[in-house]
């Protein structure tokens, strides 16, 4: 028996453990395995292999039984998941069903989850804007949260590192508010977007910008993509199904198969992490306790370094649930701040209008991105009665009017002979929200999920700053739209609950001081230095940029640090 135990410990010991196979976990796996470390990736969801497990990817529209609409019974059973814009007949199998993991909403919070190999990297909107110093300096300048322990120069080479591998389509805009990156060619703005860009540039003297939204799509052939088995984006605009060409970046198409090729990756699916194991005598984390989602058996895995990439709130949960004599309130939680200062992106409102110019022009085909308006409020100094600001998406398309009048041959004739209408333009806001102590996650004292893991309590809501920002966005965009000659301007408070943005962040924030933060500048727990957190949980502030690219860069940087630290030993 003794030998058996030694063997099983040996078999369950790796050089590194990564919890989660999503966009950041995939990067940790790639970086570790490439450097020769035997790496275990624990994924709580099912296996999704690139191409093989994209069941709807090659279906023609008419082959979908409901022509794309999700089934009502599934919507009723999954009111949270079904609220996601991407939840459709051809993608619902990539959404975690609500009853898999119940949680307690102290305020309404739509927690969108996607448990499978690759996680939400299969479903993301693929927007990849870098954060810059105007973002990293935000908390210190404006006196909220804590100062980020890093600046743009610390992350810039790592942004480049991940962008070159992922493939980012973009334009070199040369803006102070949004640093440029390593770009493949742009798919272009259409003429009405160009018109808006020119009007805005002129009206605001170059202080507001409309640019091509950088996105993780391959638009130029490069050896590095061929090596990954990925090809040019075919402009199907069916990304949510999983892309058989690997045209957009996902863990499934890119980092996971790359890690597998090294021979150093062990990927375990259906592996629900219960907690990180802390050894009081060795004074460090030694491994991870895992529950098999199917058999409910528990197994311990061991490694000298552990990366927590379970997605922002799950990473919080795992640490809160990792209790030891040394850390009775959760791993690394000496200051009681674990789970606190969470935040999100404010997508509460959108705005639409029409444009009756460019009537001799239209677009053809499908483009997997749009235009983007970087933050223009409070950029260099405080100018408004709210803190920070918002970025915005913007897009224009030529409206096609389908006449549905009539009965019989007249109706058929009408349907098959549509006409052009005005251009339709639209924008949605992406507001920075302020992390506050009362915005927090905790574990419920009594309620558990089907694995016996305490349920998460989420306490997060819009605040006054958010609502002021919503008003300002509507006011400013109305002004910008009017200047561009857009008419029929309508703002739409879509009543989206926090969480529906799928940009929840924080709870295990980075900072300089162990008294006021959980992670150091290398994303290590201050008080348990062989545990790293590099997903959304680490974010000190949210900025306005879609955050995935930043998680990828932070992860690659942290792995590099972990490997160097282990060599120094």
């Amino acid at each position: 028996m003794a030998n058996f135990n030694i063997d099983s410990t040996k078999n369950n010991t790796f050089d590194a453990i990564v919890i989660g196979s999503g966009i950041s976990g995939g990067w940790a796996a790639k970086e570790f395995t490439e450097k020769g470390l035997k790496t275990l990736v624990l994924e709580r969801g099912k296996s999704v292999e690139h191409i093989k497990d994209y069941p709807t990817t090659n279906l023609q529209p008419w082959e979908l039984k409901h022509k794309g609409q999700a089934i009502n019974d599934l919507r009723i059973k999954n009111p949270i998941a079904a609220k996601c814009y991407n939840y459709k007949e051809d993608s619902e199998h990539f959404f975690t069903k609500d009853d898999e993991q119940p949680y307690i909403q102290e305020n309404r919070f739509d927690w969108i989850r996607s448990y499978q190999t690759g996680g939400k990297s299969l479903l993301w909107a693929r927007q990849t804007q870098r954060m810059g110093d105007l973002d990293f300096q935000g908390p210190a300048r404006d006196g909220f949260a804590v100062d980020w322990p890093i600046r743009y120069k610390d992350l810039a080479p790592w942004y480049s590192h991940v962008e070159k591998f992922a493939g980012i389509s973009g334009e070199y805009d040369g803006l102070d508010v949004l640093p440029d990156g390593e770009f493949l060619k742009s798919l272009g703005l259409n003429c009405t977007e160009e018109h808006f860009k020119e009007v805005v540039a002129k009206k605001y003297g170059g202080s507001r910008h409309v640019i091509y939204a950088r996105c993780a799509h391959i638009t130029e052939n490069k050896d590095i993509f061929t090596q990954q088995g990925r090809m040019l984006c075919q402009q199907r605009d069916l990304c949510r199904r999983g892309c058989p060409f690997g045209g957009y970046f996902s863990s499934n198409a890119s980092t996971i198969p790359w890690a597998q090729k090294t021979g150093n990756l062990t990927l375990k699916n259906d592996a629900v992490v219960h907690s990180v194991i802390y050894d009081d005598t060795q004074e460090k984390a030694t491994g991870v306790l895992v529950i098999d989602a199917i058999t409910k058996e528990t197994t311990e895995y061991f490694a000298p370094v552990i990366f927590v990439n379970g997605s922002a709130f799950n990473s919080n949960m795992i640490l809160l649930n990792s209790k030891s004599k040394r850390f009775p309130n959760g791993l690394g939680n000496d200051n009681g701040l674990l789970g606190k200062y969470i935040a999100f992106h404010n997508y509460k409102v959108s705005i639409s209008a029409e444009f009756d110019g460019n009537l001799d022009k239209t677009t053809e085909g499908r483009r997997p991105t749009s235009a983007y308006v970087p933050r223009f409020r409070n950029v260099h100094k405080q100018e408004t009665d709210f803190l920070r600001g918002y970025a915005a998406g913007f897009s224009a398309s030529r409206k096609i009017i389908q006449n549905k009048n009539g009965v019989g041959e007249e109706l058929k004739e009408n349907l098959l002979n549509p006409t052009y209408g005005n251009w339709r333009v639209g924008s949605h806001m992406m507001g920075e929200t302020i992390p506050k102590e009362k915005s927090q996650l905790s574990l419920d004292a009594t309620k558990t999920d089907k694995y016996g893991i305490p349920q998460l309590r989420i306490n997060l809501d819009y605040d006054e700053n958010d609502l002021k920002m919503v008003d300002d966005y509507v006011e400013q965009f109305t002004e910008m739209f009017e200047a561009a000659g857009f008419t029929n301007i309508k703002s739409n408070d879509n009543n989206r609950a926090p969480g529906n943005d799928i940009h929840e962040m924080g709870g295990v924030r980075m900072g300089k001081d162990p008294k006021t933060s959980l992670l150091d500048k290398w994303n290590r727990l201050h008080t348990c230095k062989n545990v790293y957190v590099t997903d959304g949980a680490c974010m000190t502030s949210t900025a306005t940029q879609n955050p995935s690219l930043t998680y990828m860069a932070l992860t690659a940087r942290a792995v590099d640090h972990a490997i160097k630290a282990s060599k120094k030993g």
Partner: protein
Amino acid sequence: MKRRKVLKNIGLFTSGMLLFPSCDFSDEKVSILLNKLYIDAKQEFLVEAIVGTLLPEGEIPGGLSLKVQNFVWVMIDDCSTKETQESFLNGLAKFDMKVLELSKKYFVNLKENDRANMLKNLIKSRQANSDIQNFLNTTKRIAISGYMNSEYIMTQQMPYKLVPGAGSYVPCKTINPTEKINING
């Protein structure tokens, strides 16, 4: 007797129910399987007649040859709320009675031209109550969606490309007024 029961009795299926495309009750004509709704041949035949009138056969195939009538039932069955389903079936029954009241004939027994006029009138008429209007508008809306998203329309009339290819997006195209607009292009 409801056909569901008949089918159960002959022991062919344990769940769902089979739909026949018309009054023909032969086993060969089985078309679709519904999950929730209990409907009879009369209801099915009526929807079929309405779809056939909305989108008749002609030079370009109509709704029936593209099986749009089945799509209407599938969408009501799978993608509608319970309230919508009830209102739909209720409206269908009231429509049938209203047509009988107005023309002394059942809709299915009207001539093609009279069917079309009846639909045109009832879709906007005050004589039709809201259940009937909802039923007709819902049927028309789903029928149009099923028709426009059919393989025939999406390959022969307004071709859809599943894989448009790299470089296919044209951000700024000057419209050729003589070119037919392809909503899937």
